[in-house]
C-alpha cells in the first residue's frame, strides 16, 4: 500500500499519442477511477502503471520509488484482468499462492495466507476447485484474492466487472469497495461505465484522446464539469449552442434569450442537466427561465421518464421527470412549459461542437 504518482507520463506510438502528458497523484489508500470512452488512453495508463507498456516520457513513482523502467514482475502491483486471466491448469488455491511463491514466501506461511485471502473474498471452501469449475462471479473473486494476497503496493483493476451480469455487478461493486477500504489499498480502476465509476470512486479521472480532462470527486465532475466533454460524458447534458451577449445573458443560435451564469462574451455552449429542468402542463412560475414548448418524444424508463421538448426556436431540451403516481400523461404533440434557474446551466466558451453533444 503506497502512494502512486504519475508525472507527465506520455506514450506515443509513432505519431499517435495513446497517453498525453498525464500527471496524477494518488495518496495512500485512495480509490481512483479512470473513466472514459474506449480508446481514451485509460487502459494504456493502467498498463504503464503495471509495467506492460513503457512510457515514452514521464515518471511513475510507486511508494516514492521510481518504477518507470522496471518490468512488471519487479513492481509489486496486483492486477485484476477483465477476463480474470486465472491459470487454467492450477487450482484456485494454487492460483492464489502463485504470487507468494514468486516472492519466495516460506511454504508453511503460504497456506494460511492463501486461506485468509480466499476467506476475504468468501471462497474459503473452493480452494481445491479448478477455475473452469467456478462461475464468472467466483472466478472474479479468485482473481481479486490472487492480486491481494501478496499485499501489493497498488491494486489495479482493468474493467473488472464488465463480464458479470448486471445484478451481480451491483453486488460486487460494493464488495470490492468495502474490501479495498478495509485493507486500506491504493486502487486504480479502469472503466467506461460511469455508474460503476461514480459508485466506487473516491476521486475520478475523466480521460479522452489520451489526456486528462478533469480530476475530481463525483460532485466536482457532475456539478462543475471542466469542459464540454466532461459535461456530456458524466451524467447527461443537453447542449444549447449560441453566444454570451452580456454577462448572464445567453442567446441561442435559434434566437432564444436565456439567463445563465456569468461568463465571458462570445460563442459558447450552454449545458443543461435533464433532471434540473422543471416541466408542467400549465405556465410555470418562479424560474429565471420559463419557456413554452411542445413534446417531441417521450421515453419511458421505469423510475424516470425522459421528455424531449421542442422550444419555440425549434431547439430541443431533454427533461427528466420522476415517474410519480398521478403524474402527467404526456404524448407527442402536447403543449408543455419548462423552466430552470439561471445557475442550472453550465457555460463552455467556444463553438466546440462535436458528436459528444448528447449521451
Amino acid at each position, binding site marked *: 500500500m503506497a502512494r502512486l504518482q504519475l508525472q507527465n507520463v506520455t506514450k506515443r506510438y509513432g505519431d499517435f499519442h495513446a497517453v498525453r502528458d498525464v500527471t496524477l497523484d494518488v495518496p495512500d489508500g485512495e480509490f481512483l477511477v479512470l473513466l472514459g470512452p474506449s480508446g481514451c488512453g485509460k487502459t494504456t495508463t493502467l498498463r504503464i502503471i503495471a509495467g*506492460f507498456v513503457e512510457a515514452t516520457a514521464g515518471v511513475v513513482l510507486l511508494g516514492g520509488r521510481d518504477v518507470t523502467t522496471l518490468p*512488471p*514482475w519487479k513492481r509489486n*502491483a496486483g492486477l485484476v484482468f477483465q477476463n480474470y*486471466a486465472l*491459470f487454467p491448469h492450477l487450482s484456485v488455491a494454487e492460483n492464489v499462492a502463485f504470487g507468494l511463491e514468486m*516472492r519466495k514466501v516460506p511454504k508453511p506461511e503460504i497456506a494460511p495466507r492463501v486461506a485468509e485471502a480466499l476467506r476475504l473474498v468468501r471462497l474459503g471452501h473452493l480452494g481445491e476447485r479448478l477455475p473452469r469449475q467456478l462461475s464468472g462471479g467466483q472466478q472474479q473473486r479468485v482473481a481479486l484474492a490472487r492480486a491481494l494476497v*501478496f499485499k501489493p503496493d497498488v491494486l489495479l483493476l482493468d474493467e473488472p466487472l464488465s463480464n458479470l451480469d448486471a445484478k451481480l455487478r451491483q453486488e460486487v461493486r460494493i464488495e470490492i469497495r468495502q474490501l479495498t477500504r478495509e485493507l486500506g489499498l491504493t486502487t486504480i480502476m479502469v472503466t467506461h461505465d460511469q455508474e460503476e465509476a461514480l459508485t466506487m470512486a473516491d476521486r475520478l479521472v475523466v480521460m479522452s484522446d489520451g489526456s486528462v480532462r478533469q480530476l475530481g470527486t463525483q460532485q466536482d465532475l457532475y456539478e462543475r464539469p471542466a469542459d464540454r466533454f466532461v459535461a456530456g460524458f458524466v451524467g447527461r447534458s443537453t447542449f444549447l449552442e449560441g453566444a454570451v451577449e452580456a454577462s448572464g445573458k445567453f442567446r441561442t443560435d435559434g434566437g432564444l434569450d436565456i439567463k445563465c451564469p456569468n461568463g465571458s462574451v462570445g460563442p459558447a455552449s450552454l449545458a443543461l442537466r435533464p433532471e434540473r429542468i422543471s416541466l408542467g402542463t400549465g405556465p410555470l412560475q418562479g424560474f429565471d427561465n420559463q419557456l413554452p414548448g411542445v413534446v417531441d418524444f417521450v421515453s419511458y424508463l421505469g423510475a424516470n421518464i425522459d421528455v424531449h421538448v421542442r422550444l419555440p426556436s425549434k431547439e430541443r431540451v431533454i427533461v427528466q421527470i420522476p415517474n410519480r403516481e398521478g403524474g402527467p400523461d404526456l404524448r407527442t404533440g402536447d403543449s408543455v412549459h419548462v423552466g430552470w434557474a439561471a445557475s442550472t446551466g453550465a457555460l463552455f466558451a467556444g463553438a466546440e461542437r462535436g458528436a459528444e453533444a448528447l449521451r
Partner: protein
Amino acid sequence: MVQSTSSADAAGHLGERAKSSGFNSRRIGRYALNGMAGLALAYILTPLFFVTWLAFFRQEIPSFPPEGYSLKWFAAIPGNDRFINGFLLSMQVAVTATLIGLAVGVPAALCLTRIRFKGREWLNSLLLLPLVVPGVVLGTALYVFHVETEIHTSIPILGSLGGLIAGHVLVVIPWCVRLITASLAGSDRTIEEAAQSLGADRWTTFRRVTLPSILPGIVAASLFGFVSSFGNLEMSLFLVGPGRTTLPIAILQYLEWKIDPTIAAVSVLQILLIAAAMLITDRFVKISRVV
C-alpha cells in the same frame, strides 16, 4: 356438396404426403450420410483387418481360405536380427529426431505467434515445407548434399547415424511447428501477463504458465512427429548406411525375398505400438482437441 368434400379430402391427402415425404427425405439423407461414413471407415480399416488376420495364418504362402491358425510368425520375430535391430534403430532415430524437433519447433512456434517480423509468413511456410515435399525428393536431395559435403569437407556424414537423424528431424519439424503454433494461437496471453504481474520473470512465466497451457500441443506434436519418423521409408532409403537399417527398410528387404506372414506379424506389432502410444497420449491430452 359432394364435390367440395372430395376436393377438401384431396387437399388433406396432398398435405399429408408432402409432410411424410419431407420426413422421409430427411431420414434418407441421414442414412446416406451414415452409410458413406461407414464405407469410408471400412475403406480405412480393411487393410488393417486383413493384415492382422493374415498374421495368424498357418501356411507360408498367403492364400484363402486359411489352412489353419498359428502364432509361429510372431514367435519367429524375436529370432530375426534384422527386424530387432531395425526396430531398435527406428526407435532410436524417431525418439532423438522428435526431441530435436521439439527443441527447434517450440521456440520457432513462439516466434511465429508472438513476434511480428518481416517474412513471418514466408518462414512459416518454409518450416512446413518438408511435409509437402515427396519423401523420395527429400531423400535424393539430402543424399546429394551428403555426398557433396563429404567430398568437400571429408566429414563422414554419408550413411551415418547423425545424417539419418538430421533427415528425420526435417520430417518432425513441420508437425511440431504446426501443432504447437495452433496451440499457442489458442492460448490466452493475458495469463502470461497475470503471471508477470504476480512477480514471475519471463523464464518463470514460460515454465510455469505458457508451457503447461500448450502441453496438449506439445504432446500431440511429439506423437505425430514420432509416428511420421518411425514409419518413414522413402527418405530413409537414401540415408541409411551399411549395416544400419530402419524397421520399414528391413520389412521392405524381407519382402523382396519372401512373402510369408512374418511381415504381417511385424506390421501387427507396429500397429499395436502406435495404437498404444495414441491411447496413452489420449489419457493425458484429448487428441481430438488438438488435431
